[in-house]
């Protein structure tokens, strides 16, 4: 087995750090969009994923995802439970990974496990019990996330074996979280007053801060998935940026045509849509491919938002339109734009003269993720709803999650508001 390469190791370690940073980034991206009485509720739902899911990942998640395959490529065995005996079988996705210390790979993958369920919080804004979220979060990360990660990211996974490609998590992260979000809100129901009552963002600067952090972290979320500092990582990083930039432009163009203005939230949302769509493709397509994928994602994700008003489901901060739709766009377009000259691990996509095999595999991967995650997430939501209950009371919803779930207030600017007596 090759020696540890300090450059690759530095790259994967700093990538783990940047992906960690995406979790607060996501929290602010979402928290800025909710009303001022629900800011902390949103922040806490995200931050707590850093706590709970990380611990579960060490104890159980990693081995279920990357342990020796139990057979059929469905789940990993318990050989790495508690991260023991890791030296033996890193269970990495390819030899390259053997040039970095196992723990670097564990840490990098852990951050994916943390941020994926956090993506769901955008859909359930302002109305879910914190306790219920904690249960959903913990169970989902083991029962839904770990298996899907095994299918796609582990060399033993059945989708990996089939040759379905997902560079950094189009299926595992975005489609997985997006369909779970849809399932959860179908059980949870709509916010009181939606859609008649406007619920404008309480702080767009906070949302743009989150956007900046996400964009920054996404460079390493994608390029770090090369598991080394090399040409593929360079191409992946460039593609990631270019797709985000192009998607921002196309979202704003369509928005301006429909609503007459180019909004800052539109610019931010477009960039995120592009980042989502390029995620499965980052290290497999060329720069022009990345531009094309970004252009499609920006326009289509914007239009996908209008669906919720038609179908009357309250996907509060548009997790479905951005992550589910964006993830599908990227996973499917990879079948068209994959470029063998960029990455030997893939054949050419249809547009580059390749055959349809990859495209078919991509459809299978998307379908399998939709079905598995959608059904299990729905069942899990139902189970929690019937036992402890998913939703806060009407009064608590009216008063807001911050005071009712966490006994705190996000902001106290005035001189008077903050007056109080210690009990």
């Amino acid at each position, binding site marked *: 087995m090759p020696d540890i390469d300090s450059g690759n190791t530095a790259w994967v370690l700093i990538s783990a750090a940047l992906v960690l940073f995406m979790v607060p980034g996501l929290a602010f991206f979402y928290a800025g969009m909710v009303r001022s009485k629900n800011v902390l509720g949103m922040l806490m739902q995200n931050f707590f994923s850093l706590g709970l899911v990380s611990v579960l990942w060490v104890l159980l998640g990693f081995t279920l995802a990357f342990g020796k395959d139990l057979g059929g490529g469905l789940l990993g065995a318990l050989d790495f439970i508690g991260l023991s005996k890791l030296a033996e079988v890193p269970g990495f996705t390819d030899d390259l990974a053997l040039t970095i210390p196992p723990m670097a790979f564990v840490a990098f993958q852990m951050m994916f496990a943390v941020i994926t369920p956090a993506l769901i919080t955008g859909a359930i804004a302002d109305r879910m019990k914190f306790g219920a979220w904690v249960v959903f979060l913990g169970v989902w990360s083991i029962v839904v996330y770990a298996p899907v990660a095994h299918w796609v990211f582990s060399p033993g996974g059945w989708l990996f074996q089939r040759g379905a490609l997902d560079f950094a998590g189009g299926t595992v992260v975005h489609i997985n979280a997006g369909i779970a979000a849809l399932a959860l809100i179908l059980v949870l129901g709509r916010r009181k007053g939606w859609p008649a*009552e406007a619920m404008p963002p309480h702080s767009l600067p906070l949302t743009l801060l989150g956007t900046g952090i996400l964009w920054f972290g996404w460079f390493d979320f994608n390029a770090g998935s090369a598991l080394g500092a090399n040409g593929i990582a360079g191409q992946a990083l460039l593609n990631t940026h270019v797709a985000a930039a192009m998607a921002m432009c196309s979202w704003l163009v369509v928005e301006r045509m429909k609503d007459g203005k180019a909004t800052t939230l539109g610019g931010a949302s477009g960039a995120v849509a592009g980042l989502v769509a390029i995620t499965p493709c980052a290290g497999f397509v060329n720069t022009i491919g990345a531009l094309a994928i970004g252009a499609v994602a920006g326009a289509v994700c914007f239009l996908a938002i209008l669906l919720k008003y038609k179908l009357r489901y309250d996907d509060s901060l548009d997790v479905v339109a951005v992550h589910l739709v964006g993830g599908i766009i990227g996973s499917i377009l990879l079948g068209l734009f994959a470029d063998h000259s960029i990455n030997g691990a893939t054949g050419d996509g249809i547009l580059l003269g390749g055959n349809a095999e990859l495209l078919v595999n991509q459809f299978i991967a998307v379908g399998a993720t939709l079905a598995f995650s959608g059904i299990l997430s729905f069942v899990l939501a139902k189970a929690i709803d019937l036992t402890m209950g998913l939703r806060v009371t009407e009064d608590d919803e*009216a008063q807001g999650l911050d*005071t009712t779930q966490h*006994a*705190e*207030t996000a902001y106290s600017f*005035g001189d*008077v*508001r903050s*007056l*109080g*007596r*210690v*009990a």
Partner: protein
Amino acid sequence: MKLITAIVKPFKIDEVRDALKGMGVEGMTITEVQGFGRQRGQTEVYRGAEYTVNFVPKARVEVLVADGEAERIVDAIVEAARTGKIGDGKIWVTDVDGVVRIRTGEKGADAL
């Protein structure tokens, strides 16, 4: 001319506004205020220390109306703002010498 001032729960503002609109009242002015009364402020937690907020957020509604209408409008606000729970607030009426619309300089009832 009368000035009706109502202290209500903030989330009732929309209903109050609709009620007044229904009665043909064209305008009102809202102020976000802090109330102190029988209703206790909520209890919050700060690193192991519990404390009670002294004041409760309320909305203060001012409506200028013609003398005759004051009573039924007060009743309408009471209707719209009531939850039956403590902290629903107060309404008071004061007499106004005169009103002017800045844009036109119109005086009295025409200014509303």
